[in-house]
């Protein structure tokens, strides 16, 4: 097997007594789409934030394409990119200006041609001169995703990329993301609350609850092993587990 693009070892984040992420370890390989799912407060965003280098872990190690994030942050992060519905690009810059600014930050070579390619790939050519804040939610997400692909990332982090988007647009975006990821052969870590989406696009799923990985496997295999009717049912089971007074986990 090829070396992982993302290697997370015993990652832990504590805020005083509260442990948000508790010794999480996993890897993402080139071309692999891994879903990171779990109920609200499970530690997904905290995990992603640590991998993005915007939150210091209490302990543990993150390696991106073999580079230790804690020791060589800028070099490690240069191999990643991310997209989330919750952090739209500055609305007072046009689509093209946003891509230029972030292209420079990521040091993208032949930036002009790359921007043209992404404007075409994400159907944004007609909006290139439009301020990003004036676009619809779906269009803004397409801009965010175009930004996420700018530097041909080896690791792509997507935090609920299709949240608050209608099903047709979400389906369209999923296919674009998968196509871009396949073209670049990048590994993807994808968080979502939409289990249909996860089952459709992810090769592997990590179930996170109370900061720990409870399950790790292929979506269909997990459903089968745990006797659930669907991935969504399995998710609900895990989510309810959080409320269990004795604190036990699902098998």
């Amino acid at each position, binding site marked *: 097997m090829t070396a992982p693009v993302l290697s997370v070892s015993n990652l832990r984040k504590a*805020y005083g007594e509260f442990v948000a992420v508790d010794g999480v370890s996993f890897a993402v390989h080139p071309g692999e789409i891994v879903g990171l799912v779990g109920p609200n407060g499970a530690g997904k*965003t*905290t995990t992603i*934030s640590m991998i*993005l*280098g*915007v*939150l*210091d872990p209490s302990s543990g190690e993150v390696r991106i394409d073999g580079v230790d994030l804690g020791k060589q*942050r*800028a*070099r490690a*992060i*240069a191999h990643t990119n*991310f997209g*989330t519905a919750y*952090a739209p*690009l*500055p*609305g*007072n*810059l*046009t689509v093209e*200006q946003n891509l*230029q*600014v*972030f292209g*420079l*930050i*990521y*040091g993208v070579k032949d930036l002009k041609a790359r921007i043209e390619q992404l404007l075409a790939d994400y159907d944004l050519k007609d909006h290139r001169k439009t*301020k990003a804040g004036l676009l619809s939610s779906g269009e803004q997400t397409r801009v965010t995703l175009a*930004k996420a692909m700018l530097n041909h990332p080896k690791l792509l982090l997507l935090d609920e990329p299709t949240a608050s988007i209608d099903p047709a647009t979400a389906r369209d975006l999923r296919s674009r993301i998968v196509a871009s990821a396949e073209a670049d052969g990048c590994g993807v870590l994808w968080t979502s609350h939409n289990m249909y989406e996860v089952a459709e696009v992810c090769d592997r799923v990590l179930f996170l609850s109370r900061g720990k990985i409870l399950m790790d496997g292929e979506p269909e295999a997990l459903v089968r092993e745990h006797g659930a009717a669907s991935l969504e049912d399995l998710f609900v089971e895990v989510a309810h587990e959080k409320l269990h007074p004795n604190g036990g986990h699902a098998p």
Partner: protein
Amino acid sequence: MNLGRVFAVVLRQFYLLRGSPVRLLPMIAWVAIDIVLWGFLSRYLTQLTGEKFNFTAALLGAVLLWDFLTRVMQGVTTAFFEDVWSRNFLNLFATPLTVLEYLTGLVVTGVLTSLLGLVAMLTLATTVFGLSFFVYGVALIPFVCVLFLSGITLGILGTAIVLRFGPASEWLIWPIPSVISPFVGVFYPLSTLPLWMQAVGWALPPSYVFDGMRRILGGQGADWGRLAVAAALVVVYLVLAFLIFARVYRFAMKTGLIARYSAETAG
């Protein structure tokens, strides 16, 4: 330091100014109002005293230099606030951009925007009110350098406060120059002040500039020793301001403030 990334931070601000020319207005309009107001006051006082004292150089020159410091500071903080207002921290800091590159970009933006204001001020002050900076001679160069570095220092300090305490603390930043101005003796010698205010004043580099201005206008010539003290002080403060920002940034990285920066993060 990667200059391409610094350029990206500056380019973002340039695009903002180009896309919304109304942003240029505060850079020029407020300084123009100050120059007109103090220009006519200087002219009136000169008429009253029968041109025995150069009020234009003393008052208008002081206003112009003080406004320059204020514009430099606001150039840095406003560039930072643009990222606060557009909630852009996660987008920016989840990239290879380093804190030093980001700060350098903000400072370069502050320099460029303040120069725009300075040109407007100089044009108005010299053409309409006959202000000539030649009266200060070569000392004008250290004057401007000390005020320029003081403005950058205050700007970095201001951004550190807002990063630490949240966007609501923005309103603590705007009045900083007004709070400092009584202590630095923009219009009067520090000896006018009570002793404790004098002590504070001599700890602030701009005080040496305005003191130096008055010395030159009074025919005593520049005091290069005092200007050297001012230069040393401002360099120390600049380094301290950067260290404070770096410390706040580390705090933000440890607590997750960068990832969830919003109006609710104050406190």
